[in-house]
């Protein structure tokens, strides 16, 4: 009796069921995640393309976004960034590193019960502006902070 073959067949049966489920819309796991993973934005090679893909047409500079990051980062592989938005109604905080090969780093959705704050650590290939775009009440606001990098953190 070839057990491996049986298990393989059973597995194949299960996955085709799953595929059918996805196709008919019965199983839609992506619905569970509100902060949608925006493929076009993540694959954009310029800040303007990324912002377009994110639906950010008009962005207003704001002094109410506080970015704490080192002026000079010795190690581009780990650059700590602390972001606080003092804009009322802040829903999302998006982070871009202008000169990275793919500038868009991510979006943090704080609209469901978090304060408008996030800390993260990013890779930076070279000295660049770190750009933060805050979405509040359908408007977009931004602030930038320059970080100089002495050793890049993308290649290796």
């Amino acid at each position, binding site marked *: 009796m070839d057990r491996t073959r049986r298990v393989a067949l059973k597995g194949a049966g299960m996955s085709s069921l799953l595929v059918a489920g996805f196709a008919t819309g019965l199983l839609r796991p992506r619905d569970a*995640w*509100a*902060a*949608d*993973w*925006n493929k076009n934005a*993540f694959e954009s090679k310029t800040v303007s393309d990324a912002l377009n893909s994110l639906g950010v047409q008009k962005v207003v500079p704001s002094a109410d976004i506080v970015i704490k990051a080192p002026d000079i980062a010795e190690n581009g*592989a*780990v*650059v700590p960034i602390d972001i606080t938005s003092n804009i009322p109604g802040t829903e999302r905080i998006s982070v871009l*590193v202008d000169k*990275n*090969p*793919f500038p*868009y*780093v*991510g*979006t*943090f*959705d*704080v609209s*469901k*019960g*978090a*304060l408008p*704050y*996030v*800390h*993260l*650590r*990013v*890779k930076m290939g070279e000295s660049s502006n770190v750009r933060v775009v805050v979405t509040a009440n359908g408007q977009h606001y931004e602030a930038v902070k320059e970080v100089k990098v002495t050793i890049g*953190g*993308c*290649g*290796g």
Partner: protein
Amino acid sequence: MANPMKIRAKLEGDVAEVRVLMAHPMETGQRKDANGQVIPMHFIKDIRAELNGKPVFEAAISQAVSRNPVFAFKIKGAKAGDKLSITWVDNRGDTRTDSIELGS
């Protein structure tokens, strides 16, 4: 199976200051191994934190987040005894969820 996250939370009034460390290589797809072969992209894409089963903080991120990602965020309306759970999903469909009880 990925290693467990390290989650710490401190209650300040009704705000939980959360700090999480996720064990993940966060490969960018731009590095090469010793034989000159490109190391494929492997990175966390989605993160969600839930307080007592209700989503309170969500993120969509790229491979530009540093290896073994660390995040901090602040959750409103939290109290001792609440259950905080954090889930990540990576680009290969691997996922991990870890939970703590606040104030413990």
